[in-house]
């Protein structure tokens, strides 16, 4: 091989960089985030059920929130009828965060793990503590 020193060191740098995820996570458990559901509001529920089915909520809660916001702010509708016929007051703070009052152990668990930073809490009030 010609110019072996420069070529091999360039190749080495590339390999170290491209395998970053493999060595960065060595020795870390990398468990999936576990949003906590043990709030008083949820414990009082007879049927532990969110506004939508759990798979739907996990994948689409941001789109539901957008829908809610449009309904409330643009169309002045404050009541949302869920697929199962249950009625919810449209409110981020008074509905979602009444059941999920533990924002830090619930919403933030997933969001931190994926480095998602919803800017809602610049204006909306998150429940204190707990």
């Amino acid at each position: 091989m010609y110019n072996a020193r420069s070529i091999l060191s360039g190749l080495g740098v590339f390999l170290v960089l491209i395998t970053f995820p493999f060595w960065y996570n060595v020795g870390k458990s990398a468990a999936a985030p576990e949003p906590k559901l043990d709030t008083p509001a949820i414990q009082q529920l007879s049927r532990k059920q969110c506004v939508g089915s759990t798979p739907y909520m996990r994948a689409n809660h941001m789109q539901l929130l957008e829908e809610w916001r449009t309904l409330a702010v643009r169309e002045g509708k404050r009541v949302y009828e869920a697929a199962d016929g249950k009625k919810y007051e449209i409110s981020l703070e008074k509905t979602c965060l009444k059941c999920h009052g533990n924002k830090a152990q619930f919403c933030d668990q997933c969001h931190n793990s994926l480095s998602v930073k919803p800017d809602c809490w610049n204006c909306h009030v998150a429940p204190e503590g707990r």
Partner: protein
Amino acid sequence: MGIGFSLLLIMALLLAVFFGAGVLGWHLLFGVVIPYAAATIFLFGIIYRVVKWGRAPIPFRIPTTCGQQKSLPWIKPSRIDNPSSAAGVIGRLALEVLLFRSLFRNTKAELRDGPRLAYHWEKWLWLGGLLFHWSFLTIFLRHLRFFTEPVPSFVSFIEGVDGFLRVGVQALYITDILILVAVTYLFWRRVVIPQVRYISLPADYFPLFLILSLAFSGVLMRYFFRVDVSAVKELTMGLVTFHPRIPEGIGVIFYIHLFFVSVLFVYFPYSKMMHLAGIFLSPTRNLANNSRACRHINPWNYPVKVHTYEEYEEEFRGKMREAGIPLEKECG
């Protein structure tokens, strides 16, 4: 011809993963086995290609030069366009890699009435290429949020800058739009410019379509057919920590996206995309133009049998002395 063939290939790949992961539910194959195989082929393929290139001898210096060569002290040399030192070479390569400087010089020749040959500025290829490559890099780095725990701050920073626009309540990534526009342009120019179309092969169309499908499936997944992103991270973290697992309930669109990335990784070392490494190994780019100052020995040179003058004189000393021919060494 090339377009049809490449489209057909993409369609076949799409059908394969849609059937395999969507209908038959082979999630382990498409979520673990193929990605690992693809990463392995990618790494070893790149090493193989680079080492193979490294074994090719360079018989003489062939740097392309676009400026005054270094010569007499009172003639101003062009240090970057005609580098005579390693620093100049590094500077030129860096500008080339980061800003596509040689593409910026692109001109278009046209025969006008007269007949008159006219050259004019053609910066669109440079712009499209630059936007595409930088968007790709940004998107690539942004995806590290799926492969790291905790997510490093530089990844969050890139995400924050790239995603400062909003669509609804979500971040709208600027690079998502740029890459789709740029790749579409790069494809479009291959089709509408007759000369470019003439030289375009399936090997040119296929990577474009592959990257377009990859970006398009990602955009669809992020903004339209949402998947459970937390579960996706569970899968990707399983891959990089070598504890593969397949969480329930990830939509088929994710497997389509992952399969296109895997195909890209497999195809990479064997395709024109190896210019990733090739740019650094191009003798026209990585050599200093110093052949007048330093001797460059052709590695092909085989040992030539020579008969030096000293040996010659040694052999014919007696005869030369008799004939009165002057000798370098009088006695021997």
